[in-house]
């Protein structure tokens, strides 16, 4: 198999958004076509600020494999964004990136799953809205009826579980099935 330098799940910037809720872990699938070294990871976010002077948020991003109906954590990385010079009433679109993976890994081709949970802080939490930029503009009202491709935990957590049963995940609605833009650079 060839070695890739880059993997992204959208060729260009998507425009759908879903709000990031502290303590909610979202899983989404990605088919990785060839091997790639897990070196730099970028997520695309939109932040709308009403009246904050400084904000800070951190994502814990986990790479999971799946056997049967169980997701198993293979790697993880922390991505963070801090700013203390934002003015009120503005919207910014930013890449949030990270390189400090928990393990050196050359991702093999196949279907992998990302799990992501975020925590935010700042002088006035309620005055900033954080969103992932990605895809899914619809809001289906039934559980996803086929092979698992994503979902979200119903229990609140700030940590990535080492393993998780997909049967325990919520797969109803946009918030559960959203696919954020992610870019891997090897």
């Amino acid at each position, binding site marked *: 198999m*060839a070695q*890739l*330098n*880059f*993997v*992204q799940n959208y*060729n*260009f*910037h*998507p*425009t759908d958004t879903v709000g990031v809720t502290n303590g909610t872990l979202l899983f989404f699938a990605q088919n990785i*076509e*060839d091997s790639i070294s897990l*070196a*730099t990871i*970028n997520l695309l976010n939109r932040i709308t600020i009403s009246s904050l002077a400084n904000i800070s948020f951190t994502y814990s991003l986990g790479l999971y494999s799946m056997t049967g109906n169980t997701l198993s954590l293979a790697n993880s990385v922390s991505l963070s*964004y801090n700013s203390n010079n934002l003015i009120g009433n503005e919207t*910014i*679109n*930013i*890449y*949030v*990136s*990270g*390189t400090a993976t928990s393990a050196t890994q050359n991702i093999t081709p196949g279907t992998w799953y990302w799990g992501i949970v975020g925590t935010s802080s700042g002088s006035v939490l309620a005055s900033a809205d954080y969103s992932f930029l990605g895809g899914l503009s619809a809001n289906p009202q039934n559980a996803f009826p086929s092979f698992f491709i994503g979902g979200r935990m119903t229990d609140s957590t700030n940590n990535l579980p080492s393993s998780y049963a997909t049967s325990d995940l919520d797969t109803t609605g946009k918030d559960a099935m959203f696919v954020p833009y992610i*870019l891997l*650079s090897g």
Partner: protein
Amino acid sequence: MARINYFYNWFPFQDCQLRQFSNNELNMHLVYIPGSLSFNSLVVPISVGATINHTYTISFGLYSISGSTLSLANSASYASNDFNNSFWKNITDISATQDITPGNWFFAYIITESSNNPRVNNIIFQNATRDYSIDVNVGGPFVRGRYSVTTNGFPASIATSDMSKIEDSSATNPKAAPLLIISA
């Protein structure tokens, strides 16, 4: 890897609009080509307004990347003086015989026009809601951007440090790319 008969750099066709690119500005973006593809032709949708002849050249470059160096692997161009026309242009004048291997490649695009009135329009992956600027650039290596100098031709090699990662929403927008279709 299987062989494929075509590749286009974005989909779906309906999520697009016409946009003009700045004269002699080299924009480049990352693609992943999933199978082996014989590079026999390049199709570009073009729209030229007005009722007078307008001289222009559309140039396409295919770059590979190794480390921090982009290397020109192939190119294709079309020169004309169309006016008042919208059409698919099938460019078969490809600079080298090439069987494109699967993997990461970079599509580069330059348009050179004789005047600013009228202007050539290309179909791009962009509508009003997608026209947003990026305020914090991508971390890590270059994936999309604009060459630091104006040019009407493709350098044989480009250091990624000479490519700007700027993804603004101005008229010369490197994150907007024309629809480009390679076919066998």
